C-alpha cells in the first residue's frame, strides 16, 4: 500500500535525476562527440579489427577459409622477399625521420627564437608546399632526378659530368630524398610548438650563470624541446613506413617498400589474408621501432643533463 503511494514521488525523482543526468556536462559532452566517435569506430577501429581477423585466415581462390592459422605470419616474417621489404621500409623510414628532424630543428629554432613578429608568416611559408598534392611533389622529384632530368642536364651543362647519371633515380636514396622533402613540415611544427613552450627566463638564467650560448642551448633548450623532437620523429616515421606512392614512382626495383607488397596482395596476387598479415606485421614492427626511438631519445636527453 504505502509502497505504491510512495512509488509516484520516487518515480518523479528518478525522472528528475535522469534529467539532471542528461543535462550534466559529461553526458552532453559525450552525446556531442558521439557521431564523430562512431564514425571513427566504424571506419577506423572496425576495419583494423577486420584486417587483424583476416590475418589469421587463409584464402582459397575467392573464398576465405575461416580456420585459425599463423601461416600468413610465418610467410610474412620468414619469406626472404617480405622480410627484405620490411627491413628496407624500416631502414628508409628511420633514415627519413632522422634527416627530417635534424634538418627541421634549426628552422623550428630559428622561427621560435629569431622569428620576431614574422613567426606565423614563416610557418605559413613552410607549410604551403605541403598543401600541394603529394603525388605532384613526388613527381617533381622524378623530374629532377631522372635520366633526362633537371639535375643531370644541369650537371652536364656545367661540364661536371659527361653523360647522364643513372645513379640518381630508381633506388632507395631517391626514395629517402623524396620522403625527407615530403615530410619536412610535419617535423617542423611539433618541434616549433615545444620550443615555444621553453621558458625564456631559464635560458637567460643559464646565460647569467655563465653558460655560453652553445652550453645553454645544450643544457636548457634542447632537453626541454625533447617532447617535440619525439613527436616529430614519430609523426614522420610511422606514416613513411607504409608509403606507397614514392617507392612506386622513384624507387625502381631497389626502392620497393612493404606498402607495394601489401597493395599487390589486394590487387594482382589477390591474397587478402597475406596482405592483412603484412599490414599487421608492419604496424607492430613500426610501433616497436617507434617505442625504441622514444626510449633512445629519452636516454640521450638524460645524458645531456
Amino acid at each position, binding site marked *: 500500500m504505502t509502497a505504491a503511494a510512495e512509488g509516484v514521488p520516487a518515480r518523479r525523482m528518478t525522472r528528475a535525476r535522469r534529467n539532471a543526468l542528461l543535462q550534466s556536462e559529461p553526458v552532453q559532452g559525450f552525446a556531442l*562527440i558521439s557521431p564523430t566517435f562512431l564514425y571513427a569506430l566504424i571506419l577506423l577501429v572496425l*576495419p583494423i579489427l577486420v584486417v587483424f581477423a583476416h590475418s589469421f585466415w587463409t584464402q582459397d581462390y575467392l573464398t576465405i577459409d575461416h580456420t585459425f592459422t599463423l601461416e600468413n605470419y610465418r610467410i610474412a616474417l620468414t619469406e626472404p622477399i617480405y622480410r627484405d621489404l620490411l627491413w628496407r621500409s624500416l631502414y628508409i623510414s628511420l633514415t627519413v625521420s632522422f634527416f627530417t628532424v635534424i634538418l627541421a630543428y*634549426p628552422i623550428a629554432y630559428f622561427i621560435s627564437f629569431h622569428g620576431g613578429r614574422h613567426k606565423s608568416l614563416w610557418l605559413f611559408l613552410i607549410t604551403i*608546399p605541403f598543401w600541394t598534392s603529394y603525388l*605532384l611533389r613526388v613527381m617533381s622529384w622524378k623530374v629532377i632526378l631522372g635520366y633526362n632530368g633537371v639535375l643531370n642536364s644541369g650537371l652536364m651543362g656545367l661540364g661536371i659530368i659527361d653523360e647522364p647519371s643513372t645513379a640518381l633515380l630508381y633506388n632507395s636514396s631517391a626514395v629517402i630524398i623524396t620522403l625527407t622533402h615530403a615530410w619536412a613540415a610535419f617535423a617542423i611544427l611539433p618541434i616549433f610548438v615545444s620550443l615555444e613552450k621553453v621558458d625564456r627566463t631559464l635560458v637567460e638564467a643559464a646565460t647569467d650563470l655563465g653558460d655560453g650560448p652553445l652550453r645553454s642551448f645544450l643544457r636548457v633548450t634542447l632537453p626541454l624541446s625533447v617532447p617535440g623532437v619525439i613527436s616529430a620523429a614519430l609523426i614522420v616515421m610511422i606514416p613513411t613506413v607504409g*608509403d606507397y606512392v614514392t617507392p612506386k614512382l622513384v624507387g625502381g626495383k631497389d626502392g620497393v617498400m612493404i606498402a607495394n607488397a601489401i*597493395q599487390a596482395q589486394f590487387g594482382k596476387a589477390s591474397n587478402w589474408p597475406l596482405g592483412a598479415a603484412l599490414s599487421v606485421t608492419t604496424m607492430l614492427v613500426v610501433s616497436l621501432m617507434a617505442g625504441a626511438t622514444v626510449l633512445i631519445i629519452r636516454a640521450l636527453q638524460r645524458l645531456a643533463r
Partner: protein
Amino acid sequence: MTAMRRFFAGGWLTAYAFLYIVFLYLPVIFLPIFSINTAPTPKFPLTGYTLKWYQDLPKTPALLEAAWNSLIVGVSASVLATLLGILAARSITRYRYPGRRTINGLIMAPLVLPEIILAISMLLVMLQLGLSLSLFTVVLGHVLICIPYSMTVLTAGFEGFDRSLEEASADLGESAFGTFRRVTLPMVAPAIISSLLVCFTISLDEFVIAFFLTGTETTLPIYIWGQLRFAAKLPGVLALGTLLLLASFVLMTVAEVLRRRAARRTQNEGGLYA
C-alpha cells in the same frame, strides 16, 4: 629596431632558413616552369615558351570527368568532415568528461597511421559489407582522414572563445539552439570556413585512399597517376599539376587568412565585452 637586431642575431641560422625554404620550394617550382616549356621532356636548357599544354587540357574528356568527380568528392567530404569536426571540437573544448582524451586520440589517429593501412582496412570492410566501390566510398575514406585536420583548425578556433558570451545569451532568454545560431556560430564561422577549405584541399590532392576505394570513376590524382605511365603525356600532367598547385595555394591562403581572422575575432570581442 630590436626586432631587426634579433632577426639578424642568428646570422647563420637566417642563412640556413633561407636555404631551407629554397629546398622546400625548388621541386615544386619545376612543375610550372616545365609546363610552359615547348620541349616534351623536362630538361634544361628551356627551349621556348608555350601554352599549348594548357590548351590541350580542356580537350580531354577523361580529365574533365575526373575534375568533376574530384569536385563532388571534395565538396561532400569537406562538408561531412567539417560537420563531424564541429561536433567533436565543440565537445572537446566545451565539456569535461571521462574518456575525452582517449576519444580525441582515436579521432586524431588517422593522422599518424600509414595511409595504405587505412586504405586496405576500409577496403576490406566495405567489400565485406557489400558496398560497391564508387565515389561514395572514396568520400567515406576522405572524411576519415579530413576529420583530424578539421578538428585541429576548429579546436583552435573554438578555444579562444569566451564562454561568458554564451552564458549571457542564455541568461537573456535565448534557447540553446538560438544561442548557438546567433552567438556561437557567427564567432566561429571563419574557423568553419577555414576547415572546409583545408578539407577540400586534402580531398582534392589525396591519392592512395581514392586509388583503393574507387570503383571505375577516377579523381584528378588517379587520373594523373594513370597518365604518369606515358612519357609523352608528361607536359600535360605538368600543366594540370600546376593548376592544382595554384588551386591548393589559393585555397590554403584563404583558409589561413580566415583562421587568423577567427583567432583575432574571438580574442578581440571577448576582450571588448569582458
